[in-house]
């Protein structure tokens, strides 16, 4: 929940500080010191609790299993040599991309539908649809797990009731992947909906009215007005959600534990299994570090999008 929402703010925030007004010049000398003191706690949090541990993780990844000797990049080599891990790379990407696209599409659709109904009913519907996003995910995933449970599945009960055979939700690799994606989409789509609804509301009605008079259909309005107006917020929410979904841990852990046959593992859950459960902390750290280049890649585009947007705003 936390990080999904970051996208929103990023969408409009300049990276870096705006130039101060000219009237503040006399404060210039003292200002630096005061500002530094004010940001000191923030620096402490970032340096002490993020940067340093991250660097330490890199150091760990270069050690052998017992953490007694430096082995360089050996852990990375071993991982790439392992077909289970290569599958994990593929699965993480597949999982993140599919889930995020579905979240975005469903969120966009629902936002559109909400936008269409009379304003006084919107609040009620919005409140209802936001429920999945409000419940702590570790707890709601438990509920899903119970609904997927092989012997007692209440979803299979409904499926049987309409005459279809039970689905091995968590037992068959593809269904298991689908289940993980379903839960992730269920949890994340409401957030996209909220973001896109706000963005839709900011598109001036006159644009649509003008288009309607010009004879544009609803679809054309969507394509030529809505999407261009929302391009930036869509790309930023999508990119940011990619990161969050990519690093997701609890859903896979609670629902499938990576199974069957490791075919639902993602980076985080596999790192946990290799690093902590199998007692190979350096290799686990190496697995996590594989996320870095991909995340950096995404981060680059997010930063670019943010900066571009700021330029447009200016």
């Amino acid at each position, binding site marked *: 929940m936390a990080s999904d929402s970051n996208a929103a703010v990023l969408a409009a925030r300049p990276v870096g500080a705006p130039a101060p007004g000219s009237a503040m010049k006399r404060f210039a000398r003292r200002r630096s010191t005061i500002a530094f003191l004010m940001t000191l706690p923030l620096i402490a949090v970032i340096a002490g609790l993020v940067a340093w541990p991250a660097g330490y993780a890199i150091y760990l990844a270069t050690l052998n*299993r017992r953490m007694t000797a430096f082995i360089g990049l050996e*852990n990375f080599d*071993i991982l790439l040599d392992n077909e289970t891990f290569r599958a994990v790379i593929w699965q993480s990407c597949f999982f993140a991309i599919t889930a995020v696209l579905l979240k975005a599409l469903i969120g966009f659709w629902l936002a559109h539908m909400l936008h269409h109904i009379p304003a006084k009913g919107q609040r009620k519907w919005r409140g209802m649809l936001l429920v999945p996003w409000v419940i702590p995910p570790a707890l709601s995933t438990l509920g899903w797990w119970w609904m997927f449970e092989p012997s007692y599945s209440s979803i299979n009960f409904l499926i049987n009731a309409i005459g279809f055979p039970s689905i091995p939700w968590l*037992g068959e690799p593809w269904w298991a992947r689908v289940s993980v994606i379903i839960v992730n989409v269920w949890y994340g789509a409401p957030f996209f909906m909220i973001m896109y609804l706000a963005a839709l509301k900011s598109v001036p009605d006159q644009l649509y009215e003008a288009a309607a008079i010009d004879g544009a259909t609803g679809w054309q309005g969507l394509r030529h007005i809505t999407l261009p107006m929302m391009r930036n917020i869509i790309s930023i929410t999508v990119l940011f959600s990619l990161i969050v979904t990519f690093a997701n841990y609890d859903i896979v852990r609670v629902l499938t534990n990576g*199974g069957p046959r490791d075919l639902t593992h993602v980076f985080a859950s596999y790192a946990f299994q290799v690093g902590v459960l*199998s007692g190979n902390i350096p290799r686990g750290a190496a697995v996590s570090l594989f996320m870095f280049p991909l995340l950096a890649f995404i981060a680059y585009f997010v930063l670019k999008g943010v900066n571009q947007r700021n330029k447009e705003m200016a």
Partner: protein
Amino acid sequence: MTTNGTTRRTVLRSGAGVAAAGVLGAPMVHAQGTAGSLRFAFWDHWVPGGNDALKLLCAQWGERNRVTVALDFINTTGNQLQLTAAAQAQSRSGHDGISLTPWDVGAYADKLEPVDDVIGRLVAKYGAINPVAEFLAKHGGKWLGVPATSGTQNKPACVRYDLMLEHAGIDVRAMWPASNTRGPGADTWTWDTFLVAAEKCHKAGFPFGLPMGQFTDAVDWVGALFLSYGAHITDASGKPTVRGNAKLKTAIEYAVRLSRFLPNDVWAWDDASNNRALISGRSALVFNPPSAWAVAKRDAPQVAEKCWTIPMPSGPEGRFIAYLPWTTGIWNFGRNKTAAKEMLEFLSQRESAEATTIKSGGYDIPPFASMSDFKVWETEGPPVGSVFNYPLKPHHQAQPSIAFSPAPAELASQMYIQALNTKVIARVAQGGETVDSAMAWLEREINNMRRG
């Protein structure tokens, strides 16, 4: 509602044993003492009230020796206990002693205090410790932990005897009666018989609930199956013995055939799925300690009273019973190691072990063969005698087993966590590979684990 109340009382009586249950609600036990303090982390027992015995015993011991004893019961849900051990080993701080999963003793060998003196005295008193517990706890010729009673479990077959008789024509109660004798047909209780029974029960709509996923229940029973076919995937040095291993191939082929008669999602079952399959009344057989049956007594008494525990079937190389032993280790960076040893010695005494077993409703298995005669296994019910054959007894002509032995601990621990044995089966049965290509995968996987 009234039936519900009755069942819960029944469970309390049978599950919590003879002593008054629920006296100690708090997770910690404090006995004021002057001879220092001890803090232990034990496995948080799955059987309701299963922790009470340790709480009582440790409080008792602490009072007698004037040591303040604090106990934490840590769950294995989300592998919290394993995480705790890993973190403490790494930071060299934490509890004085901790419950370790089978292969973790070897994995933390250099951080555990040898307990040979304790074991020596115990063995002199009670006879040999079973070979699997010894194999797991003894490294480099030294005992690095005391095999525990609390939480240690066998995973024999818990059978719905009514369904088994009706659909497979096997009377398990006659075969394995509640006495130290083999009944008629006990000699025919082999994996081949088992396969036929599995097929028949599957056809009747009550498939055996045998997990094939990555949790301990699955790994343990498949491990026992492999051993009874003489199938080892590595030698004692950790070198893979997969290529051209005819016994392994036979075992895999058997498991693949068997899996056709199991529910189609066993590949993702966790440790509780088989219990739920039994409790729901949809399954004729599971491999599990009596906790499944104990919960059935609470939630589905009509199922529980039709359950009967019997040994696992035998294979060409003998009968092996899946065994999941806990070992209590003492960190060598702890401050009060002498007291810790004394307390573990006290907990291993016959009286203590029996108290533990009683409180857990017969779930706990002491590591000494001489202690397989506790009364609780005869008296638990309904049906009375249901768990008589739960501990390994001489007439079973069986051995305890741990998956992936005789591999070295560090490798075995990884293979265990990664569930290589169930995965190789799944690759064939679910993934559609040939047995040979799955075995080639297995060899590559082991070799990869051995690197670095």
